[in-house]
């Protein structure tokens, strides 16, 4: 499904060059739910950009669904993003003054889906995240959790191969954050959706089946998490 080998990414910073990724290799199979964790500066954002086809690696190979990504041009990358990847961001990134339904329809618009079909697919996606009764609300009329659900519906609407979530609970209170994690777990368990969760929070990471730890652009550890936390379980600190 996802296979990366020897990925490097170098940024020119004036005279010197910074290696954000330094020879990263791993494989993620269809239907896995994986957390990529690391402190800021560990290269997890860069890795997410490359996995999400927002950027290409400086060297190394990346194959997604059997398609080699590393040498694609802008148009091909845009198409892959539109068809195979669903993004969920910390900041939701919904279009302001635009209804939930239209926000969810946006990827379909760029994918060339039109008219009734587009609306039906968007409604179905909103139903899956439990927002069937909020389709005409603009983002500022929705709570943070609801906004993130709209964003997840937007990510799901194209039936993507990967759901790529970047700190999806970062802007939410812990209870709402749990609801969002619950939604991810349901999508994973119920529909076999591949989910990659990028976070700095070990507790959030432990909700997944597998945890990849990054540090200084290299994989520190890549371990199966045999007993993922069920969403809704309180944080250890909170128990006390």
């Amino acid at each position, binding site marked *: 499904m996802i296979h990366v080998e020897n990925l490097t990414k170098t940024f020119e910073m004036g005279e010197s060059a910074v290696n954000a990724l330094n020879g990263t290799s791993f494989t993620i199979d269809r239907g896995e739910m994986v957390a990529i964790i690391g402190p800021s500066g560990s290269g997890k954002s860069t890795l997410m950009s490359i996995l999400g086809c927002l950027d290409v690696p400086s060297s190394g190979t990346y194959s997604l669904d059997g398609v080699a990504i590393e040498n694609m041009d802008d148009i091909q990358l845009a198409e892959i993003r539109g068809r195979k990847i669903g993004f969920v961001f910390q900041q939701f990134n919904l279009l302001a003054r635009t209804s939930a339904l239209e926000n969810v329809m946006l990827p379909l618009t760029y994918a060339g889906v039109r008219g009734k079909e587009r609306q039906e697919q968007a409604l179905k996606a909103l139903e899956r995240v439990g927002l069937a009764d909020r389709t005409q609300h603009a983002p500022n009329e929705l709570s943070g959790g609801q906004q993130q659900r709209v964003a997840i519906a937007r990510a799901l609407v*194209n039936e993507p191969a990967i759901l790529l979530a970047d700190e999806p609970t970062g802007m939410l209170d812990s209870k709402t954050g749990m609801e969002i994690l619950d939604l991810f777990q349901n999508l994973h368990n119920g529909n076999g959706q591949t989910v990659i969760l990028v976070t700095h929070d070990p507790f959030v990471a432990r909700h997944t089946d597998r945890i990849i730890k990054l540090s200084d652009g290299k994989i520190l550890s890549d371990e199966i998490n045999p007993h993922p936390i069920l969403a809704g379980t309180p944080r250890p600190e909170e128990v006390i």
Partner: protein
Amino acid sequence: MLLSENFKVALRALRANKLRSFLTILGIVIGVATVVALLSIGNGATASITNQIRSTGSNLLNISPGRQQVGFRGGGETRQASHLYYEDYELLQRTLTQNISAIVPTVQSSYTIKYGDQSLDTSVSGTTAGQKDVRALQVANGRFLTDGDNKSDALVAVLGSQIATDLFGSTPPVGNNISINGMKFMVVGVLESKGASFASPDDNIFIPIQTGYDKLFGSTAAFNGKQTLNAILISVKTTNAMNTVSAEATYLLRRSHKLKPSEDADFNIMNQADILNTLNTVTQTLTIFLGAIAGISLLVGGIGIMNIMLVSVTERTREIGLRKAVGATRNQILTQFLIETLTLSLLGGIIGILLGVLTATIFRVTGLISSVITPSSILMAFSFALAIGVFFGLYPAFRAANLHPMEALRYE
């Protein structure tokens, strides 16, 4: 993505910021309106001058005294004032017979005119009966001068319409006596108004030329014991014969003025077409000049659009990142922002044209300034506005399209 979807997105973005969009297009509105209005005023000036010259009579040669000065002439040579003489007129009248419908002499001078307690200063033209046809004058009341008036040295005058109104008000002038420089003249006719125009007869008084020489003009119309003229008008039968007649008149006058071949002529022969061309050149220059000024304001409007679009791109950095993340290509982002700019300039162009046409119409209807709205000036203003939209929209659009999606998404 369809173009119509792009337009919808653009319109929504513009609607979201109504006040800002309005202020942005204001620059284009004013620019386009100014272009349309000023061009139509320029065209109006050209048209009215052309009409005025046509209405003064066709196929006219105007001979006036004066050397044509070409280039700089050095030396301490004292130059004699040049003159046209009544005998020149008689010579032309006698010699030129072919292709001529009339030859008319004019001598002109300014005097104080009085009627009752009304008094004004205006120019008095001594001329012959032919003046009426040559200059296409229309008599409103009474009659024009006749050959008989000239033969009998009659103290009669024909008034231009403005003079008649100024002196007489609502009283019918014909049959009343006016005083020109203290001498009594009887008004025998009043001309119809030709409107304020080039060499308008409205402010003129016409008297028989012989009466003028004998009783009024005195030394102002004499030089070296000869009677002088201010102009000789020759009305030529056909346009084709104008050059021939002009050459013949030149030859006759040079000979009678005893000019050496090396000397410049001491008179000018102006063809109506020449006058028309000269004035058209002037008004065209004026039109271009006005258009250029308006064009500058359009340019400023364009810079305003670019400024706002750059702000808009910066403000919407995250939106652009998101659109890219959900599958928008570079070109689709470019198109979206370009269409936004185009929509702004298109709207501004349409409103500006309406405003410009309205302004020009108000000018025309109120009679303030003559204006002619031509489709070409509208088309020009509109395409210029569009071109400015594209030109000033490209840079912000490229900036939006070239944003790196990840950096754009993280933009605070």
